[in-house]
């Protein structure tokens, strides 16, 4: 890892709550969702959230917050890990508001085509941004930024109308496409404007989410069913070595886990794994084994720290 400049703890925490807020938010959302399986099951398919369920959701969210944010994220922690954890605790979601949001959100309760976890993530992100804005307030700087963003947005709308003879499709104003178009326009026309040149797509989205009436209505009316399009990366392109490592990890799995992975993912349909495989119980057992295999593969992959091919050979020789 490249050496990082030394910044004192309080300053680091402040950065994770301001300029690096997106990182803090991403870490909170990820950790929260990672612990949310029971919550998702609790609310799945529920049409109306009654008082009793309200209380159970509240308790479950409390558990998640303790697990995801309250406890130290690892031991020991680096300076930045400790700072982002402290920032996350300072920006801790308000569980009463989250319960309300879930109670009015059909997508989070599995009543739409959106995966509930995705919807829950979107609700949490929106809630965290809202808390963040309440703390920082609408400063004069933010008001000026917003005025410039609105001007660019209006310009994009005018151009679209001139080109197509009609307004952009409904929802465009609140879509990632619009936020990217605005960012592109800033870089094209105002790359030296100190107020807006550095603001990224995520921040533009934050401004629209907080200040654009149409975007705010979009979230509150149709809740999380506004399917957010995240920037995507292809893990296999990003980590070409990872696929090789993963193959080695599969070879190290014990039976029947290895066989289950080969059947589920690698197209080895001819493999036979159990006499009960065509029964309901067999299918349930297959899923259980698949999850166990994934869990083991994940922990094996995590231990491949710096384990390059050359190091593997060296390690093997040492063992021999």
């Amino acid at each position, binding site marked *: *890892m*490249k050496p990082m400049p030394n910044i004192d703890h309080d300053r680091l925490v402040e950065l994770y709550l301001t300029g690096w807020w997106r990182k803090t938010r991403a870490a909170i959302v990820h950790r929260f969702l990672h612990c949310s399986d029971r919550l998702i099951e609790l609310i799945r398919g529920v049409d109306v959230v009654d008082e009793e369920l309200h209380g159970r959701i509240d308790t479950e969210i409390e558990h998640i917050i303790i697990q995801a944010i309250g406890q130290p*994220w690892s031991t020991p922690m680096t300076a930045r890990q400790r700072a982002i954890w402290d920032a996350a605790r300072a920006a801790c979601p308000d569980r009463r508001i989250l319960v309300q949001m879930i109670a009015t959100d059909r997508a989070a309760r599995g009543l739409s085509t959106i995966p509930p976890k995705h919807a829950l993530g979107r609700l949490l992100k929106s809630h965290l941004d809202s808390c963040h804005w309440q703390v920082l307030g609408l400063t004069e700087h933010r008001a000026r930024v917003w005025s410039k963003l609105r001007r660019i947005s209006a310009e994009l709308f005018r151009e679209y109308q001139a080109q197509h003879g009609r307004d952009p499709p409904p929802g465009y104003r609140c879509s990632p496409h619009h936020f990217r178009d605005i960012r592109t326009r800033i870089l094209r026309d105002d790359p030296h404007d100190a107020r807006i040149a550095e603001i990224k797509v*995520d921040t533009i989205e934050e401004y629209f989410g907080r200040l654009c009436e149409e975007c705010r209505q979009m979230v509150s009316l149709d809740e999380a069913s506004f399917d957010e399009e995240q920037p995507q*990366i292809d*893990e296999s392109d990003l980590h070409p070595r990872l*696929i090789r490592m993963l193959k080695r990890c599969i070879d190290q799995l014990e039976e029947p886990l290895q066989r289950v992975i080969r059947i589920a993912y690698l197209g080895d349909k001819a493999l036979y794994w159990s006499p009960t495989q065509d029964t309901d119980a067999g299918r349930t057992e297959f899923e259980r084994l698949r999850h166990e295999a994934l869990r083991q593969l994940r922990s094996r*992959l995590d231990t491949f720290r710096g384990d390059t091919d050359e190091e593997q050979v060296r390690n093997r020789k040492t063992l021999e």
Partner: protein
Amino acid sequence: MKNKSGIEKLLSDVLALQQEDGRGAELTEERVRDVLLGTESFTDAEEHLLASSPLARHTYAAALEEVEIEREAYRQRCERAGLHTSTGNLLAAATEQYPFVIPSDDFLVTVRPHPIDDGWVITLALSEQFRRISGPADVLALVDDQNVTWVRGQLNVYGEIHSYCWPYHESPAERARRPGFALRVLHA
């Protein structure tokens, strides 16, 4: 997103189980950006971080998105300025006499033998108008019709970028005589 093969789907499912413990915060967007622009490469520790931390991958995705937007903004700036960023298909004119020059409306490529080594020196020089829309921080690349990069870097004060790494076995003149040969300048 391309269709994933079985092993890629498995990798996604395994990575989706990862918990974030804040280590991903060690990877900055600036570092990822340097790697994406080809000026640096990831250390082993950073590669491991990308493989094990959802937050690090989130940072990577954000930096990648920003670089792609910068490319698009640059392309639009060129288009608006009416610049020709490509030579179009060139006729086979290059001889084995060096230096030889590949002209275009808004840029010039000069190839000459390296004065000391066996290699080649390739120089991309932009027209005055082209220079005006390119900032000193912009990383530009000159690529051929096979998408192979000839030159990559930031403009010097003369509006030029030099490269000393010739990517082919054949000589520049041989390459330039191939049917369909063309060069274009893009934001890297």
